[in-house]
């Protein structure tokens, strides 16, 4: 089958995805799953899902995003599991709500597997090419033009251009256009978007140099292995398929810091050449040394890039210092005195479109039919990009089918919901990264209940296949059985008072495995419960351990849902409302939230503003019916 051949004969499609990064792949897969004829255009189909920065998927809060994507039938979870060479759960010493799975992946295999996976989607066609402009008819986006003159018409278009739009790569006092190292940037597309009245901004991110592992003396660093009982991202994964590789931990020291200080005069960051705002949570090494000068050392993780390569990714050393400074700095790190650099570290500046211009569906408010996802929405990270891609692809498909339904998630339903709500209501002035602290309902949005939270909705929209949905339903039944057993089984507490196992488990420092050991009446509940591992075990423990907190926050969940149901009509004129503060009115006009729930998340709106808005919305409803 030659997809390109098919496409050349018929250049019409339902959904066109521009870009094949993490957002583009997830968007394309979602749209195709929904049954829309989908075309993905990428300059290089072997670079699908390329990991431009660290060779890892997941991590704190990001692992939650990946699991949620899996619960909605997505691909990032499957590919990460398939190409993982180390699985490790972060926060393992803490409660189940914040357990965060992370995997080191084989960078090269990841792209190979992504291409394989997407090729299996029957409605998805991948073509190589470079999109240079959008086709607009009557203010609606109806297609895109390629560099070679071909135009593709589509009912919905999803732009996922990553760091490629007017990308400039900085390394010391040198700078050159580029979208990633060795890949050209895209110059025409930003202009064709801003022409439509969509505002653009500038962000910055950075990546460390890559090292030849053969030139590193690992004996001077601490070996870090993965988990023996890994937690996979996807419910479909049964075991780790690739061999395991360790990471290594080392540290910088004052000598390293001195080398960096010597090179600061040629740092683009400190000479003012970089205008874009970088992420505060992921500063470059020179930034760390300047801003935290009292720290005598910083931790560096030496991460393997893959199975058949000795390349090492030194996590924690992102830098845009000049090449000679990078080498001098590296060679002062213990074990790296003879190190060879395989790629230089660099910073990249790129265009993004401030996300307050998006609806919750990720369609632009200005241009019907045009959806944006990934880093151009102001996020950072593969997982955030993939989550945005999933939502944009799904809604692009719904729109192409002419459906009235939209696919959105609330802050109480998923990290994905928190991500999008934050982006569209608060905007962002640095690359946005997900954290568990951003989720008000952190104890509710867990890995172990992701399928319970999302599979039903995914199935309803056609994102999740029947067997996968059925499986999550069966798991719910199991959960119910176990909880009933715990409620109905009496035991005795330390003082000999009768108490149910359920109430006993609520107590701190009592674990489910302690309660179940030496019992012979639980075999019907599943073998995993006894071993103290497995999703069901964590699910039961979390539901019971957190029950007091979950119950107390129920009213806030309800309030959020009520606010979300208070729709602000598109033609609602905030100028008509007396009593809004000047700042509040400006923000509301700029962002035009879809509902009161979104409005409540806008910074700068006073409680009085929200009350005024609420009362006027109530009046609208009253007048209508």
């Amino acid at each position, binding site marked *: 089958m030659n997809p390109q051949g098919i496409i050349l004969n018929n250049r019409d499609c339902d959904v066109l995805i521009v870009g094949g990064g993490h957002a583009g792949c997830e968007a394309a897969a979602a749209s195709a799953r929904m049954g829309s004829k989908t075309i993905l255009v990428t300059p290089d189909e072997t670079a699908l899902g390329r990991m431009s920065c660290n060779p890892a998927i997941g991590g704190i809060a990001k692992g939650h995003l990946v699991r949620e994507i899996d619960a909605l039938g997505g691909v990032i979870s499957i590919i990460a599991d398939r190409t993982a060479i180390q699985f490790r759960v972060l926060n393992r010493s803490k409660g189940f709500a914040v357990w965060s799975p992370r995997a080191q992946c084989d960078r090269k295999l990841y792209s190979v597997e992504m291409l394989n996976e997407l090729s299996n989607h029957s409605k998805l066609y991948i073509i190589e090419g470079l999109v240079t402009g959008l086709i607009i008819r009557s203010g609606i986006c109806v297609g895109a033009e390629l560099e070679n003159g071909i135009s593709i018409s589509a009912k919905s278009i999803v732009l996922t251009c990553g760091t490629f739009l007017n990308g400039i790569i900085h390394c010391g006092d040198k700078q050159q256009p580029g979208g990633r190292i060795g890949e050209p940037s895209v110059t025409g597309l930003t202009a064709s978007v801003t022409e439509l009245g969509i505002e653009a901004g500038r962000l910055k991110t950075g990546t460390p140099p890559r090292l030849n592992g053969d030139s590193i003396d690992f004996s001077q660093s601490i070996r870090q292995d993965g988990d023996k009982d890994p937690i996979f991202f996807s419910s479909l994964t049964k075991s780790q398929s690739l061999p395991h590789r360790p990471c290594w931990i080392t540290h910088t020291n004052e000598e390293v810091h001195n080398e960096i200080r010597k090179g600061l005069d040629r740092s683009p960051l400190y000479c003012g050449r970089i205008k874009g705002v970088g992420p505060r949570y992921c500063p470059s090494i020179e930034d760390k040394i300047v801003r935290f000068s009292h720290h005598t050392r910083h931790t560096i993780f030496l991460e393997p890039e893959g199975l058949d390569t000795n390349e090492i990714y030194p996590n924690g050393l992102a830098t845009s210092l000049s090449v000679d400074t990078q080498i001098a700095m590296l060679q002062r790190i213990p074990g790296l005195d003879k190190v060879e650099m395989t790629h230089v570290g660099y910073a990249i500046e790129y265009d993004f479109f401030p996300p307050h211009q998006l609806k919750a569906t990720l369609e632009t408010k200005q241009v019907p039919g045009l959806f944006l996802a990934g880093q151009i929405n102001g996020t950072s990270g593969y997982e955030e990009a993939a989550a945005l891609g999933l939502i944009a692809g799904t809604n692009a498909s719904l729109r192409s089918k002419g459906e009235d339904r939209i696919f959105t998630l609330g802050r109480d339903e998923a990290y994905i919901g928190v991500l999008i709500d934050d982006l569209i209501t608060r905007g962002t002035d640095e690359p946005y990264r997900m954290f568990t602290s951003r989720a008000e309902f952190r104890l509710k949005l867990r890995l172990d209940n992701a399928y319970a939270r999302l599979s039903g909705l995914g199935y309803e929209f056609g994102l999740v296949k029947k067997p996968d949905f059925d499986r999550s339903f069966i798991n719910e039944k199991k959960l119910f059985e176990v909880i009933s057993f715990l409620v109905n089984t009496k035991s005795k507490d330390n003082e000999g008072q009768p108490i149910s196992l359920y109430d006993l488990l609520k107590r701190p420092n009592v674990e489910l495995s302690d309660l179940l050991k030496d019992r012979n009446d639980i075999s019907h509940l599943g073998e995993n419960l006894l071993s103290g591992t497995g999703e069901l075990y964590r699910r039961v423990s979390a539901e019971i351990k957190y029950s007091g907190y979950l119950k107390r926050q129920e009213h806030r969940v309800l309030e959020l849902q009520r606010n979300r149901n208070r729709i602000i009509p598109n033609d609602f004129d905030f100028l008509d409302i*007396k009593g809004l503060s000047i700042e509040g009115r400006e923000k509301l006009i700029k962002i035009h939230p879809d509902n009161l729930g979104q409005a409540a998340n806008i910074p700068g709106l006073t409680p009085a503003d929200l009350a005024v808005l609420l009362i006027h919305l109530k009046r609208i409803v009253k007048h209508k019916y």
Partner: protein
Amino acid sequence: MNRSIYYNTDDTIAAEATPPGKGGMAVIRLSGNDAVNIIKKLFDRQIPPPSEHRYGELINQSSNKEELIDEVVISRYKAPYSYTGEDVIEISTHGSPIIVSNALDAIYQQGARPAKPGEFTLRAYLNGRIDLTQAEAVADLVASTSREAADQALKQLSGGIGQTTERISKNILNLLTQCELELDFVEDDIILLSKDKKIITLDDVLSDIKSMLNGYQRSRRLREGVSAVIIGHPNVGKSSLFNLLIGSAKAIVHKEPGTTRDVLQGDCIIDGVRFEVFDTAGIRTTDDEVEDEGVKRAVEAADNAELAIYVDSVELYCHSKPDLRIKGEVINVMNKIDLGYDELPDGYIPASIKEGIGIKEIQSEMYRMTVEQNHTSESTISRERHFKTVTNAESALMRVKEGVINDYSEEIVAEGLREAMSAIDELTGKRCLESLLDNIFSEFCIGK
């Protein structure tokens, strides 16, 4: 929710602004665009210019014949310089419920709508005349029965509870930041607060919260008054004291023990604080069923009172004190000292109610025990809603402290801090809670 604020805010509303019932005068308030037009049709003279008053007759012209409602004074306030921020007319009538009702009927017939509870204040709020805590403070001002309660309300009106809550918020936020760092930045090199430091901060917050809660007791008593129950053996002079305190001979006083059967109630004001005083049956074992029921009620009243005044007499003080489980404060009074005595037990106020001795001391002790003792110089909370949210914050913080001491996982500790934070936000109105708004505005009496 049975009552909510589905109000139209464009029409004209009217209601009695003074408390219902007989009084020297009553005030009816109209607010909205049509306020002036409506009164034009009912008033026999020109409507006064803005910010002025005019005397004249209010006449009902609905049923073909003209009917005098009352002689009134009309005051006019022009938007936005009025209580609600809209055009407002205030009509001062004579204080008779019939006149007020007739006047309102006429006004409604001309197109005004009866105002719902709190709706004038709601409009003031909507039009940016006041903020949320101010709205509550106005409600308190209206309801205040004493000058001190009025002061309290005024203090809150000027943003009084802000300082303490700001300090509490800041401390909670600091602790929460620590937890969030431990959860979200595990692999970063971050130096965290020690357990001891966390507990010190927590204790600071808890003591701030405690002082707010204590202050609530005082301000609630200033606003709502204090319940005081007179209790003791039969025939020690409880009813005499009761009559003296309330300033009328409401209770029958007789030398026969067991005269008082039921619980009697009367009011007295001491230094501006209202005391609701209860006289009760003397406590003794009796075969009389009615009296026995009275004794039961007396014990119950004493147990639940904020203040119990235990009266004994020198004739009887060899009596053992009856078995009571009084939760509130207790004042001990030794009556009938005019009969002569050898020595008084500790902690009793010597009194002769008959001779008027010791009454002042009893009154000032009533005030001191219930209001003065709880006095804190810090600004404080005054409403049930505030009290509830601060209590919620307190219990969340107690859980946090337990968690920190016992090394619970950070997400649990953080959740407690988030709960506390959300309670404090609710207090200051940082969160827009529909139910909160509904409650606030439904607490107002009609016309304010």
